[in-house]
Structures are given as C-alpha cells and as structure tokens.
C-alpha cells in the first residue's frame, strides 16, 4: 500500500508542472462543435452522476460512522440510502461514459479528433466506475452488505495523517481493493489527461463583475 502517497505526489507535482509550464493545454477539450445530440446525453448524465458519486464517497468514506450514529441514522437506513443513491449515481456515470465512448466511434468527426489519451481516460473511468457500481448494486445485494465504514473509511482517513493503518485493509474483499488500486492509478493519471479541467470549474464566475477591462502588459496610464 506504499504507492498511494506516490500517486498523490504525481498528481500534485505533475499537475503543478502542467499548470505552470504547459498552461495552454489546461482546458476542457470539448468536441461539442462536431456533434451535439449524443454529447447532450452522455456528458450531462456522466458529469452529474460523477458529482453525486463524489458526494457519496465523501459520505461513505470521509464522514466517520460515529457521525451517523450520533445523528441517529441506523445502519440499515444508511445502507439502503447508499445502495439506492450510490447505485443511481454509479449507473449514471457508467451510462454516460458508454454513450460518450460509443459517440467517439459513431461520428467520424469526433473519431478523427480522439487521442489515445482520450480513449484511456474513458476506458479507465469505465473500469473504475463499473466496478464501483457493481459493488454497490450487485455485491451488496447478493453476497452481502459490506460495512466499509469500519475498515476502508478509517484507513482512507489515516492516509491524510500520513500514518496509514494498512492492517485495516487486510480483511477487505478483493473487489474493493481493486477498485481502490485503479482509482489511485487514475488520480496519478489526471495531470496527463483531459481530466485536469475538473480543477478549473469556474465557481468564482457568479461573484465577478460582468464586464472585464484589462490593460496591456506594462501599460501605465500615469504617462
């Protein structure tokens, strides 16, 4: 489990390098100009799905179990919500990704402008999200509900204090371990793919003045 700090280090260092020295490549590389109808379904469903999925992970892994108990949320209620909400979010992510991947083959204009990195990103996301959705919807309902809040949750939080409690992961089912491994590999890949645009969500836009004036570099009105 020693490679997780490495993944995060790659994410931060390579991300910083790209932002500072390859800044012009830091974009949301849209192909909407080539095709709109499939993108509308694929992109919207995927992006909203992954926002829900992110919030679900915060609720399941970052927020300790004790908080739920203190709030009076029973374990059965929590798992029902997690399976229903998480399953829906997971399905949205997977469906959105499949639509976007299909679109890349269906439309020659889009196909001509898809790079290897683009396919890698989509396929890797499908792998991670597909596994996650399978665990939430199928594993939980057939094999049995796995209480990750007692093992994966505390382990994940221990990563932030730089004192990982790897012992907690020994008993975790293999599917969950694979999901985590693939996810961390994906985090490390972020600076090298189009995924960097997630850090540029323009949340400050509603706060700024509608009209922007700027002077040329070095222009000084005092003269």
């Amino acid at each position, binding site marked *: 489990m020693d490679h997780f700090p490495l993944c995060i280090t790659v994410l931060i260092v390579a991300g910083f390098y790209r932002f500072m020295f390859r800044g012009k490549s830091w974009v949301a590389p849209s*192909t909407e100009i080539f095709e709109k109808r499939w993108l509308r379904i694929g992109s919207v469903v*995927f992006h909203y799905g992954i926002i829900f999925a992110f919030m679900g992970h915060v609720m399941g892994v970052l927020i300790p179990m004790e908080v739920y108990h203190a709030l009076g949320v029973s374990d059965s209620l929590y798992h029902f919500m997690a399976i229903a909400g998480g399953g829906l979010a997971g399905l949205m992510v997977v469906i959105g990704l499949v639509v976007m991947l299909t679109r890349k083959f269906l439309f020659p204009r889009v196909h*001509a402008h898809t790079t290897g990195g683009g396919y890698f990103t989509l396929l890797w996301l499908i792998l991670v999200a597909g596994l996650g959705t399978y665990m939430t919807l199928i594993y939980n309902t057939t094999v049995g509900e796995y209480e990750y809040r007692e093992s994966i949750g505390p382990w994940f939080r221990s990563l932030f204090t730089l004192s990982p409690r790897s012992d907690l992961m020994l008993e975790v089912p293999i599917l969950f371990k694979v999901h985590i491994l693939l996810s961390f590999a994906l985090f490390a890949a972020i600076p090298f793919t189009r995924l960097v645009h997630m850090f540029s969500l*323009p949340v400050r*836009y509603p706060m700024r003045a509608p009209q922007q004036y700027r002077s040329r*570099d070095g222009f000084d009105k005092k*003269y």
Partner: protein
Amino acid sequence: MRIKAQVAMVMHLDKCIGCHTCSVSCKNVWTNRPGTEYVWFNNVETRPGVGYPKEWENTDRYKGGWVLRNGKLHLRAGGPVSKLANIFYNPNMADLNDFYEPWTYDFQQLHKREKGESIPVARPKSMITGKYMDKPQWGPNWDDDLAGGTESVSNDPNFRKLQEHIKLEYEKTFMMYLPRICEHCLNPSCVASCPSGALYKRDEDGIVLVDQDACRGWRFCMGGCPYHKVYYNWNTHKAEKCNFCYPRTEAGLPTLCSESCVGRIRYIGVVLYDADQVKAAASVEDPKDLYESQLSVFLDPFDPEVIKKAQEQGINHSWIQSAQESPVYKMAIKWKIALPLHPEYRTLPMVWYVPPLSPIMHHIANEQDLSVDGYIPAVDQMRIPMEYLASILTADDTHQIRRVLLKMTAMRIHMRAKTVGGVDELKKSQLLKEANTTAEELEEMVRLLAVAKYNERFVIPTGRREMLDDLYFMQGSCSIEDLAPPEGRK
C-alpha cells in the same frame, strides 16, 4: 465621468462590391491554422440570406446578447448560475453544421495520376476527418449573390418581421452585401458570458480579446455573442476571435480587412466615450431608442472640459487629436449617417454601417424635369425595402433609415447640381430640410465618402509604449506579447 478611448470602424455599404478580399486577407493571416479552417473573423454576407453561421440573427435559437427584464440587463442565455448548471453541455452553441465542414481538394491527383481515358479530378477532402467528401453541402458564402435561392432567402431571420409581399417576387428581388467583423462592443455579452474571465476589453483602445492562457474552453462566448463572432478552435480547444489586427493598429496601421478593401469602404478612427454611462445606455426600455442612447455615451473631443478630463485620466494628446480627426466620429456621431448593427442586442456595437442606396423601384420618368423635392418620394421607393434595412440597422425604426437615405440622396443631388446647375434650388428645397443638412455639410461628407485618402480614412494613433523602461531591449521584437523572440527580452 470615466473617459475611455475606443478604436471603431465604419463600413460604407454603398461602396461594397462583395468581392471578399477582406475575408481572404484576414483568413490568410489569422485563421489558416489547424482548428480554425472553418473560422472567418471577417466574412461578407449577401443579404437577404441566412448568413454565417446559418441564421446567426435568430436569437431565439442561439440566445445571444442581452435582454431587459424589469429594467435590468440580463444575458439572454441566462446568468452565471444557470451557465454553471449547463456547463457540461451548451445547448445554445452552434455546431459545425451551422458553420460548414471545411474542405480542401486532393490536388496531388491532378499531378500524379496515370494517363487515362478521363480527365483527372481533384476530389473534395474534409479538413476535419481527412476523408473524401462526396458532396459538400454548405460552405462559406454558399448563398453568395442570392444563389441560395428561395431556400436560403426565406430563412433570413430579418424576414420574420417583414410583410410577406416584399419577400421574393422576382421583379422586386433585391440584394446587398454585409461585411462583418467582431463589433468590439461597449457592452460585450461575450465578455459577460465567459465563466473563466478570459475575455476582456482592452482598457486603452477598447479591443475585445481572448486571453489564451485563461480560456478553458467552456464555449459560452460563442452563443453569448449575438453576432456569432467568437469561434472555437478545435485544435487548441480555446476561443478565438477578431482582434482588430491589434499588432497593426498599435503601429498606427489599419486592419488587414480595411487595408485590402478594394472599394475603400472601411474607415477606422477613435471615439471617446463615458464608460459610466454604458450600462444605462444599454438599458433603455424601447429598443428603438437604443440608437440614440448609444450616441449619448460618446463625448465631444473638441469640448475643453472633455479634453481636460481625458488627459487627467491618462489619455494622451495623440489619442485626443485622433479622436478629433476621427472619420468614425464624423460619420457616426456628427453627421449620423452610420448606424450600428442590430442595436436591439443591447451590446452597443462599435462597427457602424452607412446603409446602401439602391436602385429606385419604379423608373422615374422625365428625370431631367424632376424638381429636387421629387426625389423625396423616390427615397421611399428604394429597391431594398426600408423595413429590411431597419430590421438590420435600427431595431425596426424606419425613420432613421429614411433620414440617412435622404441625406445620402441629397448629397448626390447636390454634387450633380454643382456640375449641371441648380444648387440654389437645392438650398431652398424641402429635401435639404427633411434631410436636416446643409450644403456645406454635404460637401464635407463627399470629401470623406468619395475622395478621402488613406490618411483621412484611417486615423489611428499608435499604441503607447513610452512607459516601458526596456524599450531598447524590445526593439526588433514582435508586438504580440509572449510570442516575442527571446532576444527581445531582458
């Protein structure tokens, strides 16, 4: 009073012959790179027609520009919050089918083919997919000179407001050219639409630019501009637009489209305006009042008070002097013969158009016996319907179009009278009164509209560099910042 200087343009449509030289010279310098093949910062449209991209004036579809709701200005496509909610898919953006799929030809086939029975053909090849295209369906100026026929003409959004009868009866067919560049608006909706704050208006000359480092490719500017003059480069995934050839204007040279214009229809000059009044001017209730309210933001460059304030606010002598000699100030503000394109979008556009005089619908019999005032009804029977010009230039206010056309007609008659006699009759005529002008003004107009030389048509102050302390090191470098050669840097 916050005085700003704006570099603006006037196009005299009477002189436009629709040759596309402006488009080609612009294209060859700015948009002949991968990712911008479909992009024309300057294009010339035949009107009536759908334009480029198709039906760009259809604000119901592309939702560009501003609307007034409860006395306040809002972006038609929705404000920042709704834009953030729609950031994963932009419903109002035009796609490549609305522009066109750019293509080249397989010229090698003409060189390399073995000798055979048939003549070798250069097949069209898409510049997007690299594959052969069996049949290009649409291109730039596909409907040039009305060649789109009824199909294209009847989809002209300006016709929706017009009565059916003036549409397309063969005997009444009319045509005009409309060259278009970015309007470099005083109240640009593309700037307000940009979530990243990458688009901005240059403080010193009002040119609207895209910061290529800050652009993240969210594409709201494309639909946000009601003139559809911001484009998406699919290679760099960033927005690009007409930059008013700022490396040239900073050196005091006219833009490429103006420099190469065969008909010499273009004029460039500086106008001074009060930035504090822009919002109020764009917020008047009746769209027909927008033209007058737009004129009200401009300042008289001869007013000593204005000159004093402008100097205090850092506008130097050469810019004030240029504003005084500005052909744009004369045509748009002093003589009021140049009109803004679609003022109803509330962006306060800064490229102005002198409407074209066109042939008179019914032949005037015995023109030699016609009194001067006989031309007044003739103006109302121009071949291009006044309603059509009004829907493009004055938010449907035909009075303003009529006023300008009368003035232009009076100018022609005055010049004719000077040669063949009858100046006295003109001076007392109703025509001069209705056109609200004098013989002296008409002669000034003739000078600028017909005779003016290069230095009168283009009065452009150079960009100010005197404040840079490393000018010695900058000499010989390119004026495009960041692209300058390394030896131009300290």
